[in-house]
């Protein structure tokens, strides 16, 4: 691959193309060649009547995604599996070392810490976010004037994300001049050192994550407004009180939305990187209390240049996320209610009756 690019760039150099443009032009030439091959193959298949014209059109239309998938997702997945059995620092040739990377991972105390930090964060922050955003959405579903203003205010913090949010909260939780401890001081309490205290740092990041529940809140609000009024009216005629309405109508009706948010929220929480990186510049917080998994992977790959070990870490991460997602999917059968499954039930009941 590298050789082809090198020779293409040499060719472009002879054509007096600007140095900065040579890499991208080489890539464009390569991709154009791939695309031409795909088109020719499909055209041949249509001529030979193996596939219809529509099928050929479909595959040409989706070819950008397929090429992108092979280049940036599928190919790299396979490649990183191969790399994970090697020892490579990007400079010397890669050396095959069998499962040594995975063995090392099993007894790596830093990795243990990274998994602990990441899972704790995901398992604590996702349920808290879910409860808070759903509660706020329920409040906002009440008919009062000016509800749009509230919606805007609650959503606004979601716009301060990534580095800007981390920088802001480093100062909000500054032990001496910060907002949090300033507020506690008004009540005569001396607050903890927050991000600078190994016992508090992760809890502080959880609080930070709660500040941006506005996005989820809007999703829940849309879900709540899809619930038919008839259900509530029928239940009220039967004498149900507010709690029964909430537990037996509202929650089951929005449960697919909750499920969607829990799955995406979990994956998102597992990917946390910026907070750990920014708080103690690429350090992982006090006593590694903010050593998130992705941060540890990043350090191994791009600070220590251990590409083989980082690839093994990536695969372990992949398996962890798959297991976690599978668990949530399995569990969902017990609490997620889908409207589309109802008619079958009803039919059965009629049959029995």
């Amino acid at each position, binding site marked *: 691959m590298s050789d082809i690019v090198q020779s293409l760039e040499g060719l472009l150099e002879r054509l007096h193309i600007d140095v900065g443009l040579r890499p991208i032009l080489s890539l464009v030439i390569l991709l154009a060649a791939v695309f031409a091959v795909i088109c020719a193959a499909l055209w041949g298949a249509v001529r030979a009547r193996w596939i219809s014209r529509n099928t050929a059109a479909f595959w040409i239309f989706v070819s950008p995604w397929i090429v992108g998938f092979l280049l940036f997702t599928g190919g790299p997945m396979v490649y990183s599996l191969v790399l994970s059995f090697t020892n490579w620092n990007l400079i010397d040739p890669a050396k095959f070392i069998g499962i040594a990377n995975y063995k090392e991972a099993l007894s790596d105390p830093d990795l243990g810490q990274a998994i602990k930090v990441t899972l704790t964060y995901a398992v604590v922050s996702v349920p808290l976010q879910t409860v808070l955003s759903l509660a706020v959405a329920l409040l906002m579903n009440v008919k009062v004037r000016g509800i749009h203003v509230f919606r805007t205010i609650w959503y606004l913090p979601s716009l301060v994300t990534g580095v*800007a949010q981390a920088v*802001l909260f480093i100062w909000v939780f500054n032990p001496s001049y910060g907002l949090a401890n300033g507020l506690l001081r008004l009540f005569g309490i001396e607050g903890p050192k927050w991000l600078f205290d190994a016992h508090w740092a992760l809890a502080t990041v959880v609080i930070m994550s709660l500040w941006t529940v506005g996005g989820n809140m809007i999703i829940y609000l849309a879900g709540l407004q899809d619930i038919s009024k008839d259900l509530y009216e029928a239940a009220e005629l039967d004498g149900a009180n507010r709690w029964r309405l909430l537990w037996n109508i509202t929650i089951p009706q929005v449960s697919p939305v909750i499920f969607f948010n829990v799955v995406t929220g979990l994956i998102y929480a597992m990917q946390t990187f910026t907070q750990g990186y920014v708080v103690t510049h690429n350090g992982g917080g006090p006593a590694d209390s903010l050593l998130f998994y992705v941060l540890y992977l990043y350090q191994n790959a791009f600070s220590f240049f251990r590409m083989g070990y980082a690839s093994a870490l990536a695969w372990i991460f992949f398996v962890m996320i798959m297991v976690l997602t599978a668990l949530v999917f399995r569990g969902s059968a017990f609490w997620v209610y889908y409207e589309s499954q109802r008619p079958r039930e009803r039919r059965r009941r009629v049959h029995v009756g």
Partner: protein
Amino acid sequence: MSASAKAPTVKAPTVKAPTAKGAGGPRREPLGGRILAVTLLVVGSIGFVYPFLWMIATALRTPEGVSHGGVSLWPIQWRWSNFTDGLGSFPFWAYLRNSLLSTIVPVVAVVFSSSLVGFAFARIRARGSGVLFAIVLSTLLLPQEVTIVPQFILFKNLDMIDTLWPIIVPTFFGSAFFIFLYRQFYLRLPEAMTDAALIDGAGWFRIWFSIYLPLSRPIIIATAVLQFMSYWNNFFQAAIYLTTDRWKTLPLALAGFQSVNGTNTPLLMATALVVTFPCVLLFFIAQRHIIGGISFTGSK
């Protein structure tokens, strides 16, 4: 092309801001319940917006003012020069240009490519379409961090380290999530349009470009805004690929600023505010579409 004349009647039923009106939702609460809800909302709103206001107030203080300011929102000194000083302490305009380049190009690229692929999944009947769509959806569960090491090696072989290309190039191949959104959107448009155009002899590309793309305004705005916000704040990829000052983006610069000038709070807050500003501005311009887009992405 008679179909496009119908365009105004084909409203996007899905991308629309949820309002308190409409069929759904619990019925009117009794007065006591409403007062309680509003009280909770007001208290919560203050709590949520306070750090944001405090950020603005801190950005206008002198360093000494920070140690006396505490929880107060009133900057005792209105120090507007923090903004010029903060921005003057690093090559702001170069970083801004890099940030804009690495955001605007991906926005345009991802909108077109995802729309094209989403259209194929929604409208062209072909063998293997269902299986392929399942594969597209399954990649949604795959975090990009898993493939970051080989991707880095790929871009290293392509000679693209320390340029914006590794951030820009992948967006030309569509994003699985947006492909899904476009497919759902196109499935709700009347299929008769496609049939009419096919009978008139239009090719699939023409049907996409002249009929479906012009009708996609709501979903284009929603996806463009989502893409803008995520790439404007993109930190992970920037931290990996951009190593020298020449191509650094604003979030990367802000992170570096935090570690160097970590003690000068007002300057830091002023810079953070400037970095956040485009997203806030965009939100107020396209609020309806953003809220609609977010609801659409979540409630399927």
